[in-house]
């Protein structure tokens, strides 16, 4: 698998992106707000309907994970004009993901869900990277080509 994530491992790199929006993720209403905001930004930039649906579905999965598994956190939307991507970053201060490849496997679940959310989100996004540790929580960066 190409490791795009290895190129940008430090979240400080966000600073070169143009921030569009930032949301807290604490209650289920926040998930709706985050994915609707992403859908709006994509539609405004002429992204096709199917690609908007796919990416906002991925956002919904990831944002819910922040609440259910991470105990809440935050979500930001950025533009990476140089690369031509819209990026989202979600982060929590939860326990982290012990085994990332296992967590990405369809059917693996720790919270009684279907276990399709994380792997599904990865398939639906053009860029997907996870940074997770037991003491630093989990940060997931996703991107869609504009």
């Amino acid at each position, binding site marked *: 698998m190409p490791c795009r994530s290895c190129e940008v491992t430090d979240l400080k790199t966000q600073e070169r992106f143009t921030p569009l929006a930032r949301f807290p993720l604490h209650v289920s209403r926040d*998930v709706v707000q985050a*994915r609707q905001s992403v859908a709006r930004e994509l539609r405004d930039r002429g992204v096709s309907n*199917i690609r908007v*649906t*796919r990416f906002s579905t991925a956002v919904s999965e990831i944002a*819910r994970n922040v609440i259910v598994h991470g105990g809440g956190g935050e979500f930001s939307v950025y533009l990476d004009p140089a690369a031509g991507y819209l990026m989202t970053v979600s982060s929590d201060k939860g326990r982290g993901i012990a085994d990332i490849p296992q967590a990405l496997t369809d059917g693996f679940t720790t919270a009684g*869900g279907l276990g*399709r959310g994380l792997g599904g989100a990865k*398939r*639906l996004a053009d860029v997907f990277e996870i940074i997770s540790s037991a003491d630093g929580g989990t940060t997931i960066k996703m991107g869609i080509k504009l």
Partner: protein
Amino acid sequence: MSGIASIHLVENALLVSIQDDVNDTEILELQDSLSRRIAQDNVAGVIIDISALEIVDTFVGRVIAQLAGISKLLDAKTYVVGMRPAVAMTLVELGMYLPEAQTALSLSHALSQLRSD
């Protein structure tokens, strides 16, 4: 509670339209109240209109699948109507097939299928 429209009794079916800003709490409440109404109103079917939904993710998909399973046990059929093509494509990619739910392209299709049963 903007996400959930009220439940309507139409012929021998319960009809509900889910709005796009529905959140997880509201959809669980809907599952609960629909399950109670199926038994109470002794209906033949439940019709869930999701034409307003821009996305159906694994959580909403699971709740709909469970609701279809519940209504089957209560001797009612569940119809999911108005699914957008982009939503269907994304659901398949997520590996969600909603096996217990019947799908119909529109409300009138679902009603005519229920009538013919």
